[in-house]
């Protein structure tokens, strides 16, 4: 195990405590979007972990994508992904970006997401529950901070 300096550990800690999200709807039915936004409400309150939904992709660390990638959203998706500054992590919310879900095989679909941009975390569900989304974001934050993941997801 290598010993890191003070600033390295400080940055690691800061990344663990402050994650800005940018949410991209790639043709989703709004189900996942509603579940994602409900994470900000008093019931789940993700701001206590320093998580904030940012409006500009330039400010964000975590790129949250929902929806099967439709033909109209593929080009904007790539553009927005390239606008996030490094280090960044991609979280796919719901079944649609992971597999195409019920739209699988449709000629209007360019997905799944990992054919277009590298995906770090998948949150399955149609739609996933807010706790599942928070768990996915927490895994993404661990990855941002350079920690390895525990559990069956393992060593991402």
């Amino acid at each position, binding site marked *: 195990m290598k010993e890191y300096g003070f600033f390295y550990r*400080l*940055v690691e*800690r*800061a*990344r663990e*405590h*402050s994650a800005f999200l940018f949410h991209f709807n790639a043709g989703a039915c709004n189900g996942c979007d509603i579940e994602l936004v409900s994470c900000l409400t*008093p019931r789940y*309150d993700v*701001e*206590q*972990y*320093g998580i904030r939904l*940012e*409006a*500009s992709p*330039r*400010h964000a*660390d975590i790129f949250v994508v929902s929806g099967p990638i439709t033909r109209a959203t593929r080009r904007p998706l790539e553009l927005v992904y390239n*606008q996030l*500054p*490094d*280090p960044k992590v991609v979280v796919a919310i719901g079944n649609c970006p992971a597999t195409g879900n019920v739209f699988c095989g449709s000629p209007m679909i360019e997905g799944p997401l990992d054919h277009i941009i590298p995906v770090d975390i998948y949150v399955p569900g149609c739609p996933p529950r807010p706790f599942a989304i928070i768990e996915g974001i927490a895994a993404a934050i661990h990855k941002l901070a350079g920690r390895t993941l525990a559990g069956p997801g393992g060593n991402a």
Partner: protein
Amino acid sequence: MNPAHAIAALLVFPGLLYALPMGLLMVGSERKLRARFQGRIGPPLTQPFYDLVKLAAKWPLPRTRGERDIMALFPLLSIGAMIGALALLPVFHDNSGFAGDLMLLVGLLEIPPICLVLAGYASRSIYGEIGANREAAIDILCNVPFFAALVAMAVAAGSLQTTNIAFATPWQVRVPALLAVLSCLPVKLRLNPFSIANAEQELLAGPLTESEGRLLALWELAHVLEWVALIGFAVTIAIPGRPGGRMLDVLLFAGASLVVVVLLTLFASGTARLKLRQATRLLWRCSTVLAAIALAAALLARGN
């Protein structure tokens, strides 16, 4: 005033060494209190510090040199102006900081909004331009009552020295003028009912839409110092006397600043964002009327 005092005012108190932790604490407590008022737990008080470190550690995006330099110039300019404004605040009775007057202090306090407008236009993003447009409009708008209230206090005190204004203004001018200045604070800090220029989600991030990583960290730093300077300015011209001892002066200044933060947060969490037109009407009907009352009272008091 001697050079040692001036350097101490710039770098130690009320300059950088005091303003940076105090500003982070102010912004952190604003976020925490807003969350508590909304029934949430909210982020820890250290949250702005973590945000700042994380943003500073992000990789910069590839830009041309000219573009990068001009985008870094504006936040650096506002940070410099804010440190200068902090050093001019009349915290102590014997005025051992710079012997600057009200004009210089107000001029320095006006630099961050101007930089934000220019940065919005320089970003060449449509959202940045709309944000800059709104920022320019709302800033000019709130400067009418802000300057009128300050002019009223200066006329009543018969001096442009900030210390004299703080001590010598009679109460019938001081009360309406301070209410007008207080009502302009949420506009200048872009807090909720007047968060028109940086309207989150509505305009993406307003003038700062294209700023990433270190640039955004510099802007956050400027914003944090702006909190301390603007609230500190309102507090120093509000308190009619100083307890005397240096430590007591500092404690009174810091405590009163935090009380103003609580009031601003309460106001921000109780209100929703206004349109530019509604904000105009509100500022003309409340702040400008208060400032006009203060001006009239000042002219009457001077006539005696």
